[in-house]
C-alpha cells in the first residue's frame, strides 16, 4: 500500500518525482491533495540523496485548479480557521531545486503550484491561466504575487483580470516557462535537465536558490550583502575544495554535497 492517496511518488537516481494522480478530475487540487503534495516535497527535501524534485501531472492536466465543490460554501471565518494556504507557504521554504513538468492544463492553483517551482518545463500543449476571476474570486495561493514579480504588474493584470489562457509559447516569451518541449518528450527532457542539475554541487545550488529568492524581495544593497554571506559560506564546503582543485588539475569534479 502506498502512503499516498492522490499521488504517485518515485525516485529515479537522485531525482524525486511526484506525479499528481487524479486524472479523472484533471488533478483538481483539494486541500487534502495539497497537503499530500507538500508532505511529499518536504520528505524529498529532507532526503540528502534527492538532489532535484520534479512535479508533474497524470493525464490531460498538470492541475486544473482548486476543488471548487469543496470551497463553494466557505465563509471568511471558516477560511481563517482552516488557514489552508499555510501549506502553500511551506513550499516556499523548500531548499532542493524544484522543477514543474507541465504536461497540460495548469489553471488557478495548478498554475500557482507550477509557479512555486524553480523551473517550469512545459509541453507545447500546456496551457496556463488564472480563471478565478470568472468565478467572482481571485488567486489565493500566491498567484497575484508570483506572477507580478515574474512579468510585472501591467502584464500580470492582463491575465489575472481576463482569466484568459496562456499558451506554452506565450508563457515562454513572458519568461514564465524555462523551456517548451514536444509533448512526447516532456518527461524525457525534464529528467535529462534534472539529471544534469543533480550533478551540480548541491550546496551551491541551494545557496544560489536562496540568494535568487532574496533578489526578488530585497533591495539591491541588502541582497548583495546576503549574497556575499552565502558566497563566503560555500568556502566551508568540501565541494568548493574539490571544484577548484579539479579546475586547476584540469579534470572533472566529483561533488558530494559536503
Amino acid at each position, binding site marked *: 500500500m502506498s502512503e499516498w492517496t492522490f499521488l504517485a511518488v518515485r525516485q529515479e537516481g537522485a531525482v524525486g518525482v511526484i506525479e499528481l494522480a487524479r486524472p479523472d478530475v484533471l488533478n483538481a487540487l483539494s486541500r487534502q491533495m495539497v497537503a499530500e503534495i507538500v508532505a511529499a516535497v518536504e520528505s524529498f527535501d529532507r532526503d540528502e540523496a534527492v538532489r532535484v524534485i520534479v512535479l508533474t501531472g497524470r493525464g490531460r492536466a498538470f492541475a486544473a485548479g482548486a476543488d471548487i465543490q469543496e470551497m463553494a460554501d466557505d465563509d471568511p471565518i471558516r477560511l481563517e480557521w482552516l488557514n489552508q494556504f499555510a501549506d502553500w507557504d511551506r513550499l516556499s521554504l523548500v531548499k532542493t531545486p524544484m522543477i514543474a513538468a507541465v504536461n497540460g492544463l495548469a489553471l488557478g492553483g495548478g498554475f500557482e503550484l507550477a509557479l512555486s517551482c524553480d523551473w517550469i518545463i512545459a509541453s507545447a500543449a500546456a496551457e496556463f491561466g488564472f480563471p478565478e476571476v470568472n468565478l467572482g474570486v481571485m488567486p489565493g495561493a500566491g498567484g497575484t504575487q508570483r506572477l507580478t514579480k515574474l512579468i510585472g504588474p501591467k502584464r500580470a493584470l492582463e491575465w489575472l483580470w481576463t482569466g484568459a489562457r496562456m499558451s506554452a509559447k506565450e508563457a515562454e516569451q513572458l519568461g514564465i516557462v524555462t523551456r517548451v*518541449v514536444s509533448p*512526447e518528450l516532456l518527461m*524525457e527532457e525534464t529528467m535529462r535537465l534534472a539529471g544534469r542539475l543533480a550533478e551540480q554541487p548541491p550546496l551551491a545550488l541551494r545557496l544560489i536558490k536562496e540568494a535568487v529568492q532574496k533578489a526578488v524581495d530585497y533591495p539591491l544593497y541588502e541582497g548583495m550583502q546576503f549574497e556575499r554571506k552565502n558566497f563566503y559560506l560555500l568556502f566551508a564546503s568540501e565541494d568548493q575544495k574539490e571544484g577548484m582543485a579539479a579546475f586547476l588539475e584540469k579534470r572533472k569534479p566529483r561533488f558530494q554535497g559536503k
Partner: protein
Amino acid sequence: MSETIRYEVKGQVAWLTLNRPDQLNAFTEQMNAEVTKALKQAGADQNVRCVVITGAGRAFCAGEDLSGVTEEMDHGDVLRTRYAPMMKALHHLEKPVVAAVNGAAAGAGMSLALACDFRLLSEKASFAPAFIHVGLVPDAGHLYYLPRLIGRAKALELAVLGEKVAAEEAVALGLATKVIPLSSWEEEVKQFAERLAAMPTKAIGLIKRLLRESQEATFDRYLEREAECQRIAGLTSDHREGVKAFFEKRKPIFQGN
C-alpha cells in the same frame, strides 16, 4: 449527427465532405462548427491516418454564405468565433490533409484548401480569391498560407486583382499538387489518400510540426526542435520497420506509430 457535412471513415482515411450542394457548400455558423468538430475527431482517432476534405455537388466551397451577412454583422467577431477555431484545428492536425478540390473554391473556401497539405484539383476546379470584389481582405488564414505557398508577389497579385485561377494555372503557380481528369477523379483521389494513409503517419505529423516551426523559430531553436522530432520519430515502430524492411530488401508495412 452533422447536418452540413458528411464525415465517414473508410479504411484509414477520414472523408470530410462539405454537404450543402444547393448553396455551393458555403459556410454557415453551423458548418464551421461541424467542420471543426470533425477535424478534431479525425485528429483524435488512432485509426485515421489521412484526412480528405472535399465538396458535394459541383463546388468545393463558395466561402461565407453571403445570404447570412447583415448590416449589423461584426466581421471581426465572425472570424474570431467561427473561423479561427476551425482554422486552428486544421493547422494543428498532425496527419496528412488533402483538399480534393472538385469545383470552385472561392473566398474562405479557397482559404480552407490553402490550409491543407495537398491540393488535388479536378479539371473543373478553380480558385477565386474574391474578397476584394466585395471590399474585404482575404480571411480564414488566407494571407498566412498564400505567400508561404507561392511567394509575396504572386500572393499580392491574387489578393488584389482577385482574378479566378483555373486548375492548370494553379499547378503552374505552385498552388496545387496536380490536376486529375474528371474520368478518373474519384479513383485517383482515393488512391492518393490511401497511399498517404499507408505511410509513417507519426513522421508526417512531425514533418508538419517542423515546417510550422521553421516559419517561426530562430535557426538554433529550429535545430533543437529537429533533434526532438527525430528523437520521437526514432522511437516509432514505423522507423524500426522501415530499417528492417530495407535490410530485408522488402517493402515496409507501416502502422502509423
